[in-house]
């Protein structure tokens, strides 16, 4: 059969053009993505986002023989942060890049099949670099979001636009950088689900679900209390109860952007989104819990209603923008199996929740020297350190600047956007974290459309002389850190773990590294020539196990980094995707 394929491909190529046959991706393929090693048709290697591959060809013994196959340049002068995770289907890689670009690449040759450049307007307002985190695929289409808050469906074979819809008004500060999520529903068939970005501009967070064939909106769910959701073009239900945890009119520009995208659990049939910081940053202007900001929310994809919500940082005052991905996993504890979900929050604590109802199970710090809370109580609420909240500017002599405090972690978080991984073999979470703090103070602010809505000033500082980045293997049952890898520059890339006992992650210094999943021993590294701030993948291609990573330094660190600049200012930009496998000559060794 394989020989026949090759012959046919050759005949077509010789005739006058070459093309790759692409079978359509079904919703079943997406739901079962984690189990199939020969393709990657979802962000997170499966809708739960565990970033765990069942492949074992590549293992602790032979990973030292991993060599590059090809490197594909994104070209142009648009070399900014590349945070994208590629998708793989039938020998084609779909990869997105900075400034809302996307490519289809022939995996066997590394040659481009097509390129799509979104035509961005002047005046887009991305807060934290012009990144994109990846695409979604279904049927004969690939989908991705653009910096001007649009979602685009492209024909997977040609790269031509099939439809393009608006998520939000880019002039008001809405943007989009996450990978869309595709989920099954009984009522509507598959839906493509997106969040939005813009929490620094006083936007209102919202999750939207669309028909992937037409782009028509099926439902929308604002994340902020008081705003109305929609279903099939009509108002559905209000999120929460107006003014219950927000004073006055502030909920109207309340932030809570679900900007990192979501995960889906086929067991509970729920969609999970993390929500971002409340707006403005100055918390004295908005007493109350400010629901659902800095929270995890579970949404029923059938109607867009919130099934449950859990706030990690109620009444956030530090930009603990808790969008962090919620990963479903089954946890054995005291002889019981808990249908759990976990996330490593911006606020420095690792949370385990019951994913069926959002009930708190446990929390443990995953970074050192946390100052803003003494811990998390038995209901999951932080034990705040009141002196460690930035002071109210109204109480200062001139009313212009409140008392400055030094808080750990910094607003860039114990963990930021970069996704962690969960191994079904070691039962450990591998968390890309950072050890840093910040001076932060509050200022008065009023909302103006399209302008930054912060009311805060800040500067980030390392807390150790020799490192910021820290990859940790954490046991979700005990909350203990089993091993740690320290990295000088802050870690800003995602993690991958495999049944071959490996953990992969990239560093801003340019290395893609492989570690022993049990011990943390560094087994392999390769210098890609520019910083890595993206998530690695692995899949099986023609009987061999491949690894790929996009490379290109950028993201939020060089833009906001403060004192951290000393650790990263020498790093150079890039923009490419690298692939690796074990060469045939070494495969048997």
């Amino acid at each position, binding site marked *: 059969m394989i020989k026949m*394929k090759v012959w046919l491909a050759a005949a077509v190529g010789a005739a006058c*053009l070459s093309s790759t046959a692409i079978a359509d991706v079904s919703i079943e393929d997406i739901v079962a993505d984690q189990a199939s090693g020969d393709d990657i048709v979802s962000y997170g290697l499966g809708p739960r986002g565990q970033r765990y591959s069942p492949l074992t060809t590549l293992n602790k013994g032979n990973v030292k023989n991993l060599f590059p196959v090809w490197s594909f340049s994104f070209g142009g*002068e648009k070399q900014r942060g590349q945070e994208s995770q590629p998708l793989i289907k039938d020998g084609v890689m779909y990869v997105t890049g900075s400034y809302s670009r996307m490519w289809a690449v022939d995996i066997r040759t590394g040659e481009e099949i097509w390129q799509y450049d979104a035509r961005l307007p002047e005046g887009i307002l991305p807060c934290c670099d012009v990144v994109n985190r990846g695409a979604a695929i279904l049927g004969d289409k690939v989908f991705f979001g653009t910096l001007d808050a649009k979602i685009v469906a492209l024909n997977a074979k040609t790269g031509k636009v099939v439809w393009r819809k608006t998520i939000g008004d880019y002039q008001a500060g809405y943007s989009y950088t996450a990978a869309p999520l595709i989920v099954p529903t009984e009522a509507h068939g598959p839906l493509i689900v997106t969040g939005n970005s813009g929490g620094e501009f006083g936007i209102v967070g919202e999750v939207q679900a669309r028909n992937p064939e037409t782009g028509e909106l099926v439902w929308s769910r604002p994340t902020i209390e008081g705003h109305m959701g929609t279903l099939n073009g009509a108002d559905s239900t209000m999120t929460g109860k107006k003014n219950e945890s927000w004073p006055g009119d502030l909920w109207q520009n309340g932030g809570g952007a679900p900007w990192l995208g979501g995960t889906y659990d086929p067991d509970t049939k729920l969609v999970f989104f993390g929500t971002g910081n409340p707006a403005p940053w100055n918390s004295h202007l908005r007493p109350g819990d400010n629901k659902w900001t800095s929270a995890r929310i579970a949404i029923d994809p059938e109607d867009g209603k919130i099934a449950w919500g859990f706030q990690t940082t109620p009444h956030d005052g530090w930009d603990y923008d808790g969008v962090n991905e919620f990963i479903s996993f089954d946890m054995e504890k005291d002889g019981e199996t808990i249908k759990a979900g976990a996330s490593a929050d911006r606020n420095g604590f690792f949370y385990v929740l019951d994913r069926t109802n959002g009930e708190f199970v446990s929390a443990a710090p995953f970074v050192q020297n946390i100052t803003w809370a003494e811990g998390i109580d038995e209901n999951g609420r932080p034990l705040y350190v009141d002196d460690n909240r930035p002071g109210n500017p109204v109480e200062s002599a001139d009313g212009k600047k409140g008392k400055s405090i030094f808080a750990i972690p910094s607003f860039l978080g114990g963990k930021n956007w970069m996704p962690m991984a969960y191994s079904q073999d070691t039962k450990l979470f591998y968390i890309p974290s950072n050890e840093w703090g910040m001076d932060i103070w509050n200022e008065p602010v009023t909302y103006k459309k399209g302008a930054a809505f912060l009311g805060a000033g800040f500067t980030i500082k390392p807390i150790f002389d020799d490192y910021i980045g820290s990859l940790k293997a954490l046991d979700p049952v005990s909350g203990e850190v089993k091993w740690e890898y320290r990295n000088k520059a802050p870690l800003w890339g995602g993690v991958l773990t495999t049944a071959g006992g490996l953990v992969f992650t990239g560093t801003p210094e340019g290395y893609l590294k492989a570690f022993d999943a049990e011990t943390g021993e560094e087994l392999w590294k390769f210098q890609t020539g520019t910083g890595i701030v993206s998530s690695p993948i692995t899949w099986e291609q023609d009987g061999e196990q491949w690894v790929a990573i996009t490379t290109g330094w950028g993201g939020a660190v060089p833009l906001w980094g403060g004192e951290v600049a000393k650790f990263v200012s020498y790093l150079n930009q890039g923009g490419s995707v690298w692939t690796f496998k074990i060469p045939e000559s070494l495969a048997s060794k």
Partner: protein
Amino acid sequence: MVHSKKFLSISKLMLSAVLLACSALAQAAAPADPFGSVMWQAMVDRYFTGGDVVFDQRVKVIAPYSAENQMHVPITVDATGLENVKQIVAVADLNPIQHVLTVRPKQALSFIGFRLKLQQSSPIHVGVQTEDGTWHMGGALIDAAGGGCTAPAAAHGTSNWMQTLGETRALVRRDSKGDARMTVRMRHPMDTGLAAGIPVFYMNKMVVKDEAGGVIAELDLFEPVSENPTITLKPAVGSSASQLAVSTRDTEGNEFSFPLSVPAVTTQ
């Protein structure tokens, strides 16, 4: 196994499609080109396949001898002397992208006016294909200074060009009883992708329909059509007043549509 079978059938299909395309390439040499274009044979092979190619006086291509402004070169094609017209294809032989547009007049006269970008002095060839497959050719030679396709659109001198995208001016007049003459001009940069740092972005579809939803004309537009496409058609809509529906789409999936009123013919 099921998966492999599917692959096989797709591949077979592709193979036959490719062979078909190749057999079309192997047709007889085209007649001599009165405009002496070095690209003539290539233009025939690429765009004027599937029938005989003949130069025909009934295809009138009205163009300036010299392009005053190579970003906007006005062309009028009048093939109303031909019957049973299937499509009209215009190419600029020496442009980096040659295919300018294709028009399929359904309830319209075989007539189109448009403006194109010209990269250098070039022959323009217009093929009008009739139902029997024959390509009736006409053309013109246009002298030009150069640079039309690789320069940025004038729109990029302003910061709000995307807000005015698709803004339209339209005019309908009566030429003779039974026909109307409509001209639309729509704001669009029509970026060719050849200007440094500006990705390809152009209006690529236009459909004009009558009140009942019947198609009057369909147009495929390509990169060489001038910025702010200006298109003239002659819908055959009878002598009474009616309303046309014009809809367009660009390569980013933006869709624009508007109604266009046609006045009744006034007796003189």
